[in-house]
């Protein structure tokens, strides 16, 4: 038995292949957080007065709030005054074409497998690339504009589409929502903005790629997606960071607005640096993601969370309109000393609303994985339905899996189902595969990928392949 455990440990102590850092000329603010910091950020971005006021209100709210401590997480105290809240690669202020992107930034993204040259891009995907605090480039802007789709950095949207931003910013996640959302609202630096006009099916996948490069910086990005009536969009975000010994804070806010009969599919492949096997370093990933689904609209969250030292994240759907649909598909892997407390909230407000939750937690090494999910059916939500399935897979005996479902039902017509299972990768399964000629690593990877199948099936094709590879890499000992 101990032999097998040792082998599992080797398999899960994979090295982190995105751990390199790039030497970029960076404009970085001194550490510390005061009202002046908020003004500095707003000033750097040449923001209108209303946005500065909004930030200051959020900052005041944040100061009066305490860090949440209800999650099953052990968090080293975060010194918010020692972080820098602004870091931007210095480059030419205006980019006329992709060729104007700093070659070192281009190289960095090439190394990450995200080519920024449109002609080099294989798949039909538009990319917004964000390094530290700012968006460095967005591809395929013209193609998208022809369809009426706006896809740009958040800062650009503030300048070019202020009315849209002002109307929707904070409409789904209010500034006082929680400690980290308030912090983000005060100091957010950049992020992506998408607007899909009524009746438009976005002609390509939209994708934002986040990269933390600088040391001792927090990354606070803000994403806002607005899908007008009868529109459709599929959006993907990917994240990596260099390998550093100190913990870095990533506190993002994502707001989705799905108007009548629209559909937003939001997929995340999160692979922030997880820290080493002793728990040194790694990203603190404290993220608030929420969508509001209007009448007959559908919001679908799919996440593959393999990175970060700590993940605190509950992508949620407010099922506001009648017959709206919310979905949450999640794979969360915690190995080494990683901790994940993740799940979703499905708030049923409208009648005949349906939500489904498929959560797959994988724990290895000393990883701790908690599913925490709320299904709330308000009095108004006649005939609401929810189906929840939480499966946990344990690799080894030092890790943990926890399932904490909260169910609050105020309407007796609701149908709420919850299924949960916990299993281990059996010696029987491994031996069966090995008897058929597979190495133990291949067998483990195949079994774990099979466990995640239902979630991977929800990802856009090219990202499903990526997710599968990522999971294998995270479980293997040989990639560096």
């Amino acid at each position, binding site marked *: 038995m101990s032999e097998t455990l040792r082998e599992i440990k080797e398999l899960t102590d994979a090295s982190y292949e995105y751990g390199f850092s790039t030497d970029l000329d960076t404009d970085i603010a001194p550490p510390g957080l005061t009202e002046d910091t908020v003004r500095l950020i707003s000033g750097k971005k040449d923001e209108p007065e209303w946005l500065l006021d909004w930030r200051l209100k959020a900052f005041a709210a944040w100061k009066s709030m305490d860090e949440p401590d209800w999650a099953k997480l052990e968090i080293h105290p975060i010194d918010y005054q020692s972080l820098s809240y602004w870091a931007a690669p210095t480059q030419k202020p205006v980019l006329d074409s992709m060729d104007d992107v700093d070659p070192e930034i281009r190289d960095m993204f090439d190394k990450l497998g995200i080519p920024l040259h449109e002609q080099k891009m294989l798949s039909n995907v538009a990319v917004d690339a964000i390094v530290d605090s700012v968006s460095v480039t967005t591809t395929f802007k013209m193609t998208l504009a022809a369809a009426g789709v706006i896809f740009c950095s958040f800062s650009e949207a503030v300048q070019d589409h202020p009315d849209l931003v002002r109307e929707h910013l904070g409409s789904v996640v209010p500034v006082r929502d929680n400690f980290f959302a308030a912090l983000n609202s005060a100091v957010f630096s950049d992020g992506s903005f998408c607007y899909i006009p009524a009746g438009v099916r976005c002609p390509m996948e939209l994708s934002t790629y986040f990269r933390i490069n600088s040391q001792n910086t927090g990354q606070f990005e803000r994403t806002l997606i607005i899908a007008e009536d009868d529109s459709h969009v599929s959006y993907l975000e990917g994240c990596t960071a260099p390998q550093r010994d100190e913990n870095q804070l990533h506190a993002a806010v994502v707001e989705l607005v799905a108007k009548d009969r629209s559909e937003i599919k939001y997929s995340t492949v999160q692979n922030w640096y997880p820290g080493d096997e002793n728990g040194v370093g790694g990203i603190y990933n404290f993220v608030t993601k929420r969508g509001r689904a209007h009448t007959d609209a559908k919001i679908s969250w799919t996440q593959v969370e393999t990175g970060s030292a700590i993940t605190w994240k509950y992508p949620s759907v407010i099922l506001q309109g009648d017959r709206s649909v919310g979905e949450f598909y999640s794979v969360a892997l915690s190995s080494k000393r990683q901790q994940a407390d993740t799940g979703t909230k499905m708030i049923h407000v409208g009648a005949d609303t349906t939500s489904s939750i498929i959560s797959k937690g994988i724990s290895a090494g000393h990883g701790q994985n908690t599913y925490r999910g709320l299904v709330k059916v308000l009095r108004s939500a006649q005939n609401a339905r929810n189906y929840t399935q939480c499966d946990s897979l344990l690799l080894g005996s030092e890790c943990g899996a926890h399932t904490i479902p909260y169910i609050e039902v105020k309407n007796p017509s609701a149908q709420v189902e919850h299924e949960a299972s916990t299993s281990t990768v*059996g010696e029987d399964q491994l031996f069966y*595969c090995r*008897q*058929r*000629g*597979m190495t133990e690593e291949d067998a483990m990877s*195949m079994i774990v990928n099979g466990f995640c*199948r*239902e979630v991977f099936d929800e990802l856009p094709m090219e990202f499903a392949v990526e997710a599968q590879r990522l999971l294998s890499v995270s479980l293997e000992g040989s990639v560096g």
Partner: protein
Amino acid sequence: MLHVENLTASIGGTPILNGLDLDVGSGGVHAIMGPNGSGKSTFAHALAGRDGYEIDGRATLDGVDLLDMEPEARAAAGVFVGFQYPVEIPGVNNMYFLRTALNSVRRARGETEIGARDFLAVAQEAMDLVEMKEDFLHRAVNAGFSGGEKKRNEILQMAVMEPRLAVLDETDSGLDIDALRIVASGVNALRRPERSMIVITHYQRLLDYIKPDFVHVLVDGRIVESGDHTLALHLDDHGYADFVNHDLDDAPERPLSGAAR
């Protein structure tokens, strides 16, 4: 071909195989019969290299020592075990599993991997053999399969893997008469001059369909009698009593008892 000499196996100090000797020639089909707890499945596991047993003695395939090899290396050397209880692997497509298995042994042998299209032809032929429909390939490995489907899947895998030595562990258990016929005819169709088979079974019934060249009786971890297929008929009429000098129900717990007649 397969040469087993004085093979012993125990778990946590409890002996299960107590000096098993067996020679299986090329193309030979040998049946191993024996009461519950006599060590039949342990023998299959010992040949395949399952963890958890203390093993001693010799087992060679074509002169190559199996006992020092990892399970996957034994598979590459041509050892295939059809399991009594095939495990389920949820979410893993049966066809993907089969192709990964085949390509794993091909890689280990230094052969080229087989592409998706060529593989489909191989799989199709194997499917016909066990009378399986196409959708069988697209289901998850053994997940939700009936007992009969699981056993047919084992034979399907054997057909694809083309082993040098196939050990079929109670392939007949849990089968109705139709499934038994399908499994047995599949096995018969896979008999080759260069392939040896060991068929482990409780009942003579299977041997009506698969005619063995030799029948061996395994009791208390060693072979106590060998003969031709008439030995199986004798066992069917008289049970194992002739070969056991103690109460059968005690068999697993009893120490070595010198069980040969």
